[in-house]
Structures are given as C-alpha cells and as structure tokens.
C-alpha cells in the first residue's frame, strides 16, 4: 500500500510543543483516526517532545527534533529523532501515586502516559541519534507484528 509520509523539523524548545501537537493532530485526522485516537497521538507526541528537550538535550536549545508521521492502512506511525543523549523511554510499572513508597513522587509520568496512550512504543539508539517510534491503530485493530 502507498504510505503517505509527513515530516517536521523543529528546534528543541518548549514553545514548539503546540506546533508538534498540531502537526501530529493534522496527520492523525488526515489518516482518518477518530477524535479519541487523535488525542492520544497528540498527548504521546507532547510527552515525547518534552522528554527529548529535557532528557536527550538536557534543556532547551536550537538543536533539531525530527518528527515523521507515516500512515498505515489501519493507523499511524509517529517517529521522533533527536541527536541528544540516550534516554530511557521505558515506563514505570505503575503510576507514582500507586507506589507503596511513603513519599509519592511524580517521575516517570510522561513515559507512563506515552506507553498507555499508544499501541506500540519502540526506542532505539542509532549512532548519535535516538529514534522513538510510536504507533496508534484505529479502534478495533491491533498492531500487526
């Protein structure tokens, strides 16, 4: 099937968040994802971008974040590429407030949301780059491995 691909390159700055979300929003809508799945993609993209700025680049800078959306027959693949330090996108096993620790902390919340909002999350380090690939399928479909 012919895959439509859209690309965006933005500097690693938080004011770019709205632009990243709007890009993903447009791609998801064009792919025909319903409102709820579209919102899930925006949410995961927001969290991913913030993690890249904060964890991969260690703070705001003009270094690049590449976003690519590729339509699948039944969903959307969103990938984020950055040139920063490797970061750990694996989720905590439970929300921090369900932790048995006396002091409830809030670390890991973004990663938890990414994993729960999306149907598939894959992180790779290739050379000096981080590649985070997220996919979301239309309701009723599950990821074709």
């Amino acid at each position, binding site marked *: 099937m012919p895959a439509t691909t859209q690309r965006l390159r933005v500097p690693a700055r938080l004011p770019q*968040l709205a632009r990243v979300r709007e890009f993903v929003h447009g791609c998801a809508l064009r792919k025909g994802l319903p409102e709820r799945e579209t919102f*899930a993609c*925006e949410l995961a993209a927001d969290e991913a971008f*913030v993690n890249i700025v904060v964890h991969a680049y260690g703070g705001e800078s003009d270094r690049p974040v590449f976003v690519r959306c590729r339509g699948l027959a039944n969903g959307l693949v969103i990938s984020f590429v950055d040139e920063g330090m490797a970061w750990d996108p694996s989720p905590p096993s439970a929300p921090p*407030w*369900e932790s048995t620790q006396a002091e409830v902390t*809030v670390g890991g*919340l973004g990663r938890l*949301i990414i994993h729960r909002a999306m149907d598939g999350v894959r992180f790779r380090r290739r050379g000096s780059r981080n590649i985070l690939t997220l996919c979301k399928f239309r309701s009723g479909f599950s990821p074709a491995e």
Partner: protein
Amino acid sequence: MDVKTTEYKRVAVVQPVGRVDSNTSAEFEAELRRLVDSGHINLVLDLSKIDFLSSAGLRVIVSTMKSTRKNGGNICVAEANARAAEVMKLAGLDSVIDMHPTREAAIASF
C-alpha cells in the same frame, strides 16, 4: 491558557481554560499555590474547559493535592471533559482524586 478562579469562603474553584502543557503549567501552578498560600484548604478543579492536559499539568495537580491534604483539606475534580478525563484515567489519577460530574457536587463533597 487562562485560569478562572472563583473564591468562596470555604472552597475555591479553579478553571483552567485552554492548554495546560509544559509551556503553561507554571501559570496554573502559580494560581494554585496562591490559593493554598492564602489559606484555601479545599479546592475544586473545573476541567470542563481544558483543550489539552499533559503530565506537566498532572504534576501540578498532584503537588497541590499533597499541599491541601497536608493542611487538612483536599482537592477534587469537577466536570472533566473527555480529554481531561482520558488523561486523568491514563495516568491513574482518577483513583487518587475524586471526580465529580458537576461543580456543585464537587463543592458539596467537602
């Protein structure tokens, strides 16, 4: 993002309007901190006008929840729209913070 606050004697209702994300959560946090610092121990978050809510907003909510509980009060949510409810649920916060269908039910819960 804009924050509309209604302060009553025994409770304050805070309604963030628009997008609460990493860019705007500081404003949201400042308003909640102002209310806690001015002596409000019971807060209602009206999430009916949220266009976007990310973990940055949830962190503010959780930290405010801890402050109010430490002061002998609490925080709860009213009228969460679909997006806000989805994020609260994804994060598991809906099992930690009471969610009420209306502002009045939220206010009456204290």
